[in-house]
């Protein structure tokens, strides 16, 4: 079966895609980048703020890259951007754009905004989620027309748990922040711990209101004085207190999670597999380092243009079908071709594990096997997903 499928694919390739590019027709493709600006509230650790245009700059670079390619194919890509801190405005804008004929959307919004937009637009809209790591979007909502380029929290924490297992750091103290996002990150880690046989020896809720910049050395040793652990896991997505846990724990142990050793979609320390070139291009374009949101937005734009290039069509239905097909491959600078899971539209991708100055490892770790694709050891596998197609 496998062989005949392959033969068919290569026959298609030879028939349809091997023409030299002089035979291409003119195409214009507009992609809409909508950003809901989130207010994460005040944080204690405000030394290194996240860039405000995280995501946007990645989408812009994706357009630039696509146009350099498009020039040879008579394809022209453009980006329309919209930004607001009010969910209702972002949703209204998405509807207005759809009604005016727009079909390609890259969203950097909350998961509830994304859900509302998906329900408001027609079936022929192609939406990339480049802003929400929410597990529910991948597991339960399963919006038909949505692709997720940002890894889910489940993927991130699975990547981390595999590494912990490989290093035999399997007794963990958890420290969880108070926001909903922190709770979601902590639950994702608990699921991962269960899957990979990691033991949680103690779990603590962070609810201090003192200024840790001054008292971390006093407060944290006591706070982390529990049953002995190999490693401390921190769930603090917005970066409120997590930075102060490092080097201040009761037992001198490494810190992992949202601070310390972190699983990410992208980071400036990723430089293998040609990534150095993407980093350089991005740095030249944005005058700063590329973040996970930038990478996710870039991957969304590049997925559209890759499909347009290969199908020679800008019809959103044809583009979407191609992106979902076995033929789709995205060179994402992560050492292997990337494609989307058919059961929930999640971009399969290796997850770098980084500290601020170097790449420590990349998951999936060796030895974590899967019957069809090792990348599917990260996040929700087919059987766990409740979508009815």
């Amino acid at each position: 079966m496998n062989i005949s499928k392959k033969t068919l694919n290569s026959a298609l390739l030879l028939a349809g895609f091997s023409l030299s590019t002089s035979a291409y027709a003119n195409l214009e493709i507009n992609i809409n980048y909508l950003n809901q600006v989130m207010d994460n509230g005040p944080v204690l650790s405000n030394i290194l703020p996240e860039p405000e245009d995280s995501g946007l700059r990645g989408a812009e670079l994706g357009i630039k890259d696509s146009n350099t390619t498009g020039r040879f194919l008579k394809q022209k890509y453009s980006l329309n951007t919209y930004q607001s801190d009010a969910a209702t405005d972002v949703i209204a804008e998405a509807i207005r754009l759809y009604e005016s004929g727009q079909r390609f959307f890259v969203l950097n919004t909350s998961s509830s905004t994304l859900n509302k937009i998906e329900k408001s637009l027609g079936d022929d809209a192609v939406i990339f989620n480049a802003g929400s790591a929410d597990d529910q979007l991948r597991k339960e909502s399963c919006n038909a027309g949505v692709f997720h380029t940002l890894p889910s929290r489940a993927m991130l924490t699975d990547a981390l748990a595999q590494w912990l297992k490989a290093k035999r750091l399997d007794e963990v103290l958890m420290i969880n922040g108070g926001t909903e996002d922190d709770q979601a990150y902590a639950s994702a880690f608990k699921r991962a711990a269960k899957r990979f046989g990691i033991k949680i020896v103690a779990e603590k809720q962070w609810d201090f209101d003192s200024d840790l910049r001054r008292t971390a050395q006093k407060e944290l040793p006591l706070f982390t004085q529990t049953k002995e652990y190999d490693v401390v896991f921190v769930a603090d997505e917005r970066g409120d207190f997590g930075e102060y846990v490092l080097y201040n724990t009761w037992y001198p142990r490494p810190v992992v999670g949202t601070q310390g050793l972190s699983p990410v979609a992208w980071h400036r320390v990723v430089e293998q597999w040609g990534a150095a070139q993407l980093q350089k291009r991005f740095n030249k374009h944005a005058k700063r380092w590329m973040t996970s949101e930038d990478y996710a937005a870039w991957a969304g734009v590049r997925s559209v243009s890759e499909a347009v290039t290969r199908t020679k069509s800008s019809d959103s239905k044809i583009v979407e079908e191609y992106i979902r097909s076995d033929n789709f491959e995205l060179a994402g600078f992560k050492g292997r071709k990337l494609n989307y899971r058919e059961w929930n539209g999640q971009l399969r991708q290796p997850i770098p594990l980084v500290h601020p100055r170097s790449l420590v490892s990349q998951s999936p770790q060796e030895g974590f096997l899967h019957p069809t694709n090792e990348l599917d050891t990260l996040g929700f596998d087919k059987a766990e997903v409740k979508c009815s197609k």
Partner: protein
Amino acid sequence: MKFTKLLKPIAAAVMLASPVAMAELAYVSNEKDDTISVIDLDTMQVTDTIEVGERPRGILFSKDFSKLYICASDSDTVQVMDLKTKQIIKELPSGEDPEQFALHPNDRHLYISNEDDALVTIVDTETSEVLAQIDVGVEPEGMAVSPNGKIAVNTSETTNMVHWIDTTTYELIDNTLVDQRPRHVEFSKDSKILWASSEIGGTVSIIDVDSRQIFKKLNFEIKGVHPDRVQPVGVRLTDDGKYAFVALGPANHVAVVDAKTYEILEYVLVGRRVWHMDLNTDQTKLLTTNGISGDVSVIDISKMKAVKSVKVGRYPWGVKVKS
């Protein structure tokens, strides 16, 4: 009978001692050491390590083997080394971040891919004059000039194309879309066929030069290696038209392909992350650079087996043999 058996090694010894058959040397660029390692192919020892510019990648010789051209990527220059004195005698204006290049059969015009600038730069090596800069796709990489000198080709890794350049007008004449992340291009000796590897696509496209159409695609399968780890990079053809060798990157194997039937004959295990290759002068040996293991594997072509590995610097990238 005994006599002839005895004679053979003597004859071989005489050959070696004769002044005509000088020791062959392999030059290897070490990307993360900023050096060139020199391997004596008789003793299989590193006999010299020469400091060069930053991040040396592509290397090649002038026709008479008197000069070595070096893409010093992070120094943004192509260096010219006098092989007698081992001194850098010239730096050519290469454009930013030169990665790979090819020398026109006229022995003068160097075609250089500038990875950061989406350009191909053509430099006259004698006058150091930039003859032309041609816009190509994102991350230009592989570079080759046809042996008949008429066409230059460049691959762009993120645009996924083979760009065809007319060497008389310096104009882009056509593009051929190939699989993800095309790396290396190699012409057949008669200039009629082009081999182009796609690292992430995992394929090698074989292209008819006249029509610029792909007429055959090679897929590789190695037992025990996940298909995604099979990432073709370097391609090297033997002059007799018998074999094509394809370096498969992190699959740590070199594929041996029948260059006439395009059948994959076998896979030879080499060091880790095998990148580029070159043949010795009589084409009995194939040398491969292995980035992660930091060594060069020597394949005996009659046995199709790696018979030796020679430790060089960090991240060996290119290799060229000087007779």
